[in-house]
């Protein structure tokens, strides 16, 4: 367990969190390499199945990062995403995997620090929760090699 390095998938909206990640990079603000970013055209593009599949394929945690409330490029994609994350949380609680492995976060494109801080906080939270219980030891290894 000491060596456990969580694999975290972050679905980041092109208009905010993804640019914020870029900003963190150009400002040389470090954030944990555990976070694997998937760029999406809007956080509202992220469906429940994408989050479920990420976990099923071996992620230990998933978060969706969208724009601040009221700032969504597509008006309310971020709110739709937040509702879906809530839905998945309940489903994961029922499954016994635990809804706390999934989060919705919001930030603007300029918030490089917030991006790095969020990535760190979520990585530490998942590290404490331990490996995704739905992972066999074999695909646990595969996932961390990817």
């Amino acid at each position, binding site marked *: 367990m000491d060596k456990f390095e969580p694999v975290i998938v972050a679905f980041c909206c092109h208009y905010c969190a993804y640019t914020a990640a870029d900003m963190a990079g150009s400002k040389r603000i470090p954030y944990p390499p555990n976070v694997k970013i998937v760029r999406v055209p809007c956080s509202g593009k992220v469906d*429940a199945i994408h989050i479920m599949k990420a976990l099923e394929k071996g992620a230990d945690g998933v978060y969706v990062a969208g724009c601040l409330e009221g700032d969504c490029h597509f008006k309310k994609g971020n709110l739709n995403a937040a509702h879906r994350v809530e839905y998945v949380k309940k489903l994961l609680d029922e499954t016994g995997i635990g809804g706390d492995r999934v989060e919705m976060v919001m930030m603007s494109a300029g918030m490089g620090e917030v991006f790095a801080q969020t990535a760190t906080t979520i990585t530490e939270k998942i590290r404490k929760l331990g490996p995704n219980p*739905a992972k*066999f030891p074999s695909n646990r290894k595969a996932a961390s090699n990817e």
Partner: protein
Amino acid sequence: MITAERKPLEEIIECIRPYDRILLVGCNECVTVCAAGGRKEVGLLASALRMAFMKEGRTLEITELTLERQCDPEYVEELVTMIDAADAVLSMACGCGVQEVARRYKNKPVYPAVNTKFMGASVSQGVWAERCQGCGDCILGLTGGICPVARCSKRLLNGPCGGSTSGKCEISDDVECAWQLIWDRMKELGIQDRYEEVMVAKDWRTSRDGGPRKIVREDLA
């Protein structure tokens, strides 16, 4: 549409626990529209079940398929090529679909993954409400297009009862009084005088009281 809701995961897991290979079958009609058992829900349930079993150290093999309609033999026939590879079928269709699969594949256990609820309409995104109970002798023409059978808690044909308060039914503030709705609508249509006519007792034999029902269209049958 016929509405449904997914059963609690725990109940579904208990049903399929004895099996290793599950054929999970959705339906592209009503249950898709009410977000209970279409392709998306099939995918989510399959993923959730796989993870629940992996957590127990077991691999569950799930084949996902969403039929155009699960209550029609033509479409249920499509399962023929995959049924042998499954130990059991888990159906996300309404009760009609589940039964059609059970009828066609006699030696295969079939389990429902949803609770079929009622015939209803979409009120708003994500909200569905009961509208019809299939009484077999529709009286909507007499009630301004609002069904007292499905929407009055007491199924009164000559309402409202004394419990109707500020448009709400006495059972709950969340339930609109059907007879208030009927009255408002009659007023809107300028046919209030019809309200005075006493409705005679309904013959419930056309409803479930006459036993299981069947329709035969001789020109088609």
